[in-house]
């Protein structure tokens, strides 16, 4: 049975599958089911966690978990929306140690709190980085520049 059918059978109507091509599949899922789905992919189906991407959108931060199925030439992306303003997301690093660093990165770049993460200290940004400034959010620096221009 192929991977997509297995996922469909198990999660039925909780997920929305979008097949962009045979090699690129995107699965949209609610925050509550995301943990179960990613755990199933990583632990049971043997996917490799490639990386997670954070994208700032209007309603919240979208997190994309890119899972690679190397034996099947498939790149499966799990799409989760973390709504503003709470921006809380359960951590996946307990069952998937590979996610530890990227969750730290998303935390400092977008301000998403990963509940249960062992260590959310800064990873990439300097020690004296101002709190509450998230460089990869839309408008963080654009507005700063505009303000400066207005002042000058």
């Amino acid at each position, binding site marked *: 049975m192929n991977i997509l059918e297995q996922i469909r059978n198990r999660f039925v109507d909780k997920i929305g599958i979008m097949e962009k091509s045979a090699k690129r599949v995107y699965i949209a899922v609610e925050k509550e089911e995301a943990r179960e789905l990613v755990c199933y992919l990583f632990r049971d189906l043997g996917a490799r966690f490639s990386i997670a991407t954070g994208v700032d959108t209007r309603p919240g931060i979208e997190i994309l978990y890119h899972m690679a199925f190397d034996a099947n030439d498939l790149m499966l992306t799990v799409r989760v929306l973390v709504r503003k303003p709470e921006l809380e997301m359960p951590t996946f690093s307990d069952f998937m140690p590979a996610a530890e660093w990227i969750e730290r990165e998303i935390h400092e770049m977008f301000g998403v709190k990963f509940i249960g993460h062992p260590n959310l200290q800064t990873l990439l*940004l*300097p*020690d*004296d*980085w101002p709190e509450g400034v998230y*460089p990869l959010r839309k408008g*963080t*620096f654009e507005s700063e520049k505009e303000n400066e221009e207005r002042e000058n």
Partner: protein
Amino acid sequence: MLKKIFTWGLKKSLWVYHAGASACNNCDIEILDLLTPKFDVERFGIVLVGSPRHADVLLVTGVANRQTAPRLKNLYDQVPNPKVVIAIGSCACSAHMFRDSYNYVKPIDEIIPVDIYLPGCPPKPEAMIDAVVKLLGKIK
């Protein structure tokens, strides 16, 4: 008199310390390349040393980001006088394409005084040797 002895000593064998300030490490590898058999600048007494306190020349590569800028100043202060600073690569000379980055602070030559600018991305090893030759001509 003492100064004369210092400059004479400086000219004979340059000991360099290499400080990468957030570089892409291409310049850094080309610097290392200078030591390997094809270019082999150790023939001329140029040695890469492991501590800034032993160095005559500070090689700086890369753009200074918020994390490295204070450390660069610190490194410069540790190099004993008389000292020379060479900025290697376009990043160190002019911040290159990283000028608009949020993590970029200010040009290298505003943090520490730079004596020689060597642009290129990365400069060829031959260009680096040429810079050192020019530097030797400059020391009086």
